[in-house]
């Protein structure tokens, strides 16, 4: 399956005191890094696309279809969080299998796909482990394996590698790039790391004060000509 | 719309219950009684066997907690009751029981009945009787009080456990006993007795348990209590104190319900009740005195029981009329 475009059309959302308004248009198969100061609304932006939050007005379009009112599970979207991606009491294979059947009723073909996804993410042989027995990097690989078996056109990642070391993070980025090359899904990834954004994304969406303040190619954003607020944020 | 869920749930419960309804059959008599009557050590099993042999029918006991619960149960069920016979009311309850209009005249001969003070009621038939008494532990107390007056005015160190007249039959019995002896002075007497009362329990069981645990050397119970300890446990440690003023009487009775009029076995049972076949089961299973002749003499332990100098009793209507006021008077003194 290839990617699908994601468009936020005058999406408004209020969270307590803060009012947010997002306009964004991401092309199918594109990789976008979402950056911005803490509390600026990056996670909310992803939650609106994933369906965990409902806009008070405006539309969320995925692949050209209006997804504004769809519940999370029915959206063509997978999301990986910084943590709590796995159910602690279920082993690796089951956690991945849930991506195929929410009742865990797996066919032989499903099982084969789960095994293949685990092999692809380098987790062969760890099917029976519980999340507590895995390292942080391995747990995120399990989450990515589930993304593979779900096979949705859009992948959202909310600081997925924030708690991993530099080498491991590079490894994970390579894996993510590889998967995107194979499947062609659209990716939006929240990150605070300029190197991560540069390595992965073609475009950067800069979120500030509850709105997409800038949305431009990475080279441009990181150049001297980038928006001053963005430059202040990355400490350039 | 409050009634809708109510009806729904009633239907639901009824459905759940439908499976275990006892079938009404010919040649079957249903007797409501209290549970210590039907207990395996109570008179129930022997009575059932003897009556079934006599009538060639089936006798079903339905047991509730005690005499008060019997009246309530009947009141709650009204004319739809399953009971042909209600067995286990006492003279404190007969007036209220009669007032429900749910009982019919017995129509049997009372010639064989022998209870103190005689008996000529047209509805209720006695099956046993007893006297309330202060039972004491002879190992903790050498000389028990010889009269109610001595108990009331005695040494505050010799404690007694009594029952609450609001919740227990013996408790009400002591209240009436005091009233019968002291009349209008009962309040003042209670005020004096109060110091000797260790505690007031909700029922006989709690009081007697405290007594046998040694918490107090005296308890309010029955003149027949020592007979139990002597016959069943072989000890004469626990004795009843004979009171000069006399003892208050409790007569236990049975009666036929309006529903039981249609069942010829009901009248037969009331008649059977005053024969030795029934009465033989009473003394050493219900630990009361039989209300008619038994086929063999009673165990000597019963013969040794306190013989009251006088039999004290109020008429049922007098109890019914005054009970609430008297209990209130008792509460006022005892809560002070």
């Amino acid at each position, binding site marked *: 399956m290839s990617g699908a475009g994601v468009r936020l059309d005058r999406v408004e959302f209020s969270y307590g005191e803060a009012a947010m308004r997002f306009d964004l248009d991401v092309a199918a198969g594109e990789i976008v890094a979402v950056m911005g100061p803490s509390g600026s609304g990056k996670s909310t932006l992803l939650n609106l696309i994933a369906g965990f939050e409902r806009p008070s007005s405006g539309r969320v379009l995925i692949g050209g279809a209006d997804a504004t009112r769809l519940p999370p*599970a029915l959206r063509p979207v997978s999301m990986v969080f910084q943590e709590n991606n796995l159910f602690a009491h279920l082993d690796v294979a089951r956690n991945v299998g*849930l991506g195929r059947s929410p009742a865990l009723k797996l066919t032989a073909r499903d099982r084969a796909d789960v095994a293949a996804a685990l092999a692809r993410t380098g987790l062969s042989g760890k099917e029976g482990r519980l999340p507590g027995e895995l390292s942080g990097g391995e747990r995120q690989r399990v989450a990515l394996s589930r993304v593979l078996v779900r096979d949705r056109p859009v992948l959202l990642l909310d600081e997925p590698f924030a708690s991993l070391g530099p080498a491991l993070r590079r490894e994970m980025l390579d894996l993510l790039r590889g998967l995107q090359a194979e499947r062609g899904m659209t990716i939006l990834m929240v990150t605070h790391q300029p190197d991560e954004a540069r390595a992965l994304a073609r475009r950067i969406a800069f979120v500030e004060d509850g709105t997409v303040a800038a949305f431009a190619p990475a080279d441009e954003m990181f150049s001297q000509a980038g928006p001053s607020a963005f430059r202040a944020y990355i400490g350039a | 719309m409050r009634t809708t869920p109510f009806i729904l749930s009633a239907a639901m419960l009824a459905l759940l219950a439908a499976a275990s309804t006892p079938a009404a059959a010919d040649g079957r008599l249903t007797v409501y009684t209290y549970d210590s009557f039907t207990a395996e050590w109570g008179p129930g099993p022997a009575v059932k066997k003897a009556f079934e042999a006599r009538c060639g029918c089936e006798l079903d006991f339905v047991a509730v907690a005690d005499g008060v619960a019997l009246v309530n149960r009947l009141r709650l069920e009204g004319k*739809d009751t399953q009971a042909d016979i209600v067995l286990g009311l006492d003279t404190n309850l007969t007036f209220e029981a009669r007032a429900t209009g749910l009982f019919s005249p017995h129509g049997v001969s009372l010639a064989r009945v022998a209870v103190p003070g005689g008996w000529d009621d047209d509805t209720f038939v006695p099956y046993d009787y007893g006297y309330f008494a202060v039972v004491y532990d002879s190992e903790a107390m050498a000389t028990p009080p010889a009269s109610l007056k001595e108990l009331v005015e005695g040494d505050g160190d010799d404690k007694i456990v009594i029952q*609450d007249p609001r919740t227990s039959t013996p408790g009400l019995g002591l209240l009436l006993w005091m009233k019968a002896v002291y009349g209008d002075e009962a309040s003042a007497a209670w005020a004096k007795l109060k110091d000797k009362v260790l505690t007031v329990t909700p029922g006989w069981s709690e009081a007697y*348990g405290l007594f046998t645990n040694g918490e107090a050397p005296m308890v309010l119970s029955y003149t027949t209590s020592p007979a139990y300890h002597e016959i069943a446990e072989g000890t004469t440690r626990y004795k009843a104190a004979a009171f000069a003023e006399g003892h208050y009487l409790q007569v236990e009775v049975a009666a036929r319900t309006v529903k039981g009029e249609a069942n010829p076995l009901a009248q037969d049972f009331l008649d059977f009740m005053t024969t030795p076949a029934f009465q033989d089961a009473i003394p050493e299973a219900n630990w009361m005195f039989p209300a008619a002749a038994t086929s063999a003499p009673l165990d000597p332990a019963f013969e040794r029981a306190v013989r009251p100098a006088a039999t004290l009793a109020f008429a049922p209507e007098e109890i019914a009329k005054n009970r609430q006021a008297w209990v209130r008077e008792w509460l006022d003194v005892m809560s002070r």
Partner: protein
Amino acid sequence: MPRDGRILAGMAGLGLIGILVGGAFAGLIHEAARDWSGAGEAFDAYLFRVARFTLWQAALSTLLSVAPAILVARALARHPAFAGRGLILKLFALPLALPAIVAAMGVLALLGRAGLFADVLGGWSGGRWPGVYGLPGILTAHVFFNLPLATRLFLQALEAVPADQWRLAAQLGMGARASFRLIEWPALRAALPGVAGLVFMLCVTSFTIVLTLGGGPGATTLEVAIYQALRFDFDPARAVALTALQVALTVAVVALLLKLGAGMAADAGLPVAPRRPAVAGGVERWVNAALILASLAFVAGPLAAVVVAGARADLARLLADPAVHRATLTSLVLAATSAFLCVALSLALAAARRAMEMKRRRDARPSFLERMLDTGAGFVLVVPPIVIGAGWFVALRGTGQLFALAPVMVVAVNAVMAMPFALRAIRPAWDAASARHERLAAQLGISGIDRLRLIDWPAVRRPALTALAFAMALSLGDLGVIALFGSDSVQTLPYLLYARMGSYRTLDAAGLALLLGVVCLGLMMLAEQGRAERGRPELRGEAR
């Protein structure tokens, strides 16, 4: 708004409770409609005294149970490896399963006029020890029942504190005082109103203990007045009025308690930690050990008296008695059925409450329904079982089904009465699990029965088993409903115990009390084993 299945389940649970209580009231009110005079006459100076005493003894009992329980729970929490800790906690579940009279006898065996300590106490007070009757007796017995209960509930609250916080405290070198103020007290304070409310309600409805140990009718609770109104005077109007008063007074007090405390906040990131480090040291270690041992002595003393009294009985004969077999089986079946119903009800209520909390805006006040799902349902504790029993009896008369009513009533009433306890054990775990899994489950589309089976049940199994054990213990010791019906179709162990006691067989009764305690201990061990064996994976959790 699409109706959430969980909210529907919660509403069904509330409905069941409403039907149970409402149906009973409807029955009594219908009966009372003939003569309402009793309702008005009930309110007089005597009632005022009774109400005042009811609240006074309940407030004192609550204070004396809850304040030490906080210290004991904290001591137990800070010494996870304290010798015999597991056994102590199991012992702490036992008082709940004992009929009140057995507990009263246990207390008196030590502190009574002829108790073990009578000579010592008499020596102190100069003269013969009069026995612990009156208010001190009532309070002692209530603390015996409720201190262990409160301790277990507080300990649960402390164990829900994320391990990271303990590590942080240890790293920052927080002393006993600082960690109490900064870590333990906030967790305890969140649990305090609920626990105190529960204990208060239990003490408000105390009956046998108040009468037996109270020394005289000056010690009378509203529950006694209700019992008297229904049983001796058969005055449904007065019973309904008194029950309404009892519920109203309790609601007022508990509402006040809730105002004092913070709401229960679930920690979202909760990584169910590996064992947290024991942080107590030096002097504190000795103080804590003394606290634990003192509370143990307080609870184990009367229990030991029950054992000693029971051992004097002819246990071999009792154990061979078919009536005892039947009663044990009946008790187990009824207790198990009520416990399962109770846990199911509590899960439904907890799930519905959480679902409603997530639905509303974060800054919005909880709706009436949400609050009913939370604390509201707990008030069912102060509706006397005899009122429920009698009400349904009246309501169903004429259907000819009264014979079969007793077991249904016993199960339903016990399940509902145990629910406030179960809810207290289940809700924090449910909320924490929900906070962790909600988005993931929503994204993966796991819902309904699949979600319960795969996600929610494994997360709440441990507290649910605790709740199950609690509910079983409570139901095992219950006599309330059965006493009214006195039906021979439901001869339970406590019923048999009372029957033996009521016919001079005091020793048999003592033996049965021992048996009841052993059965309850066995159930506790089963429940704990179920937790340990099958709950192990969660222990590791998803550590960061």
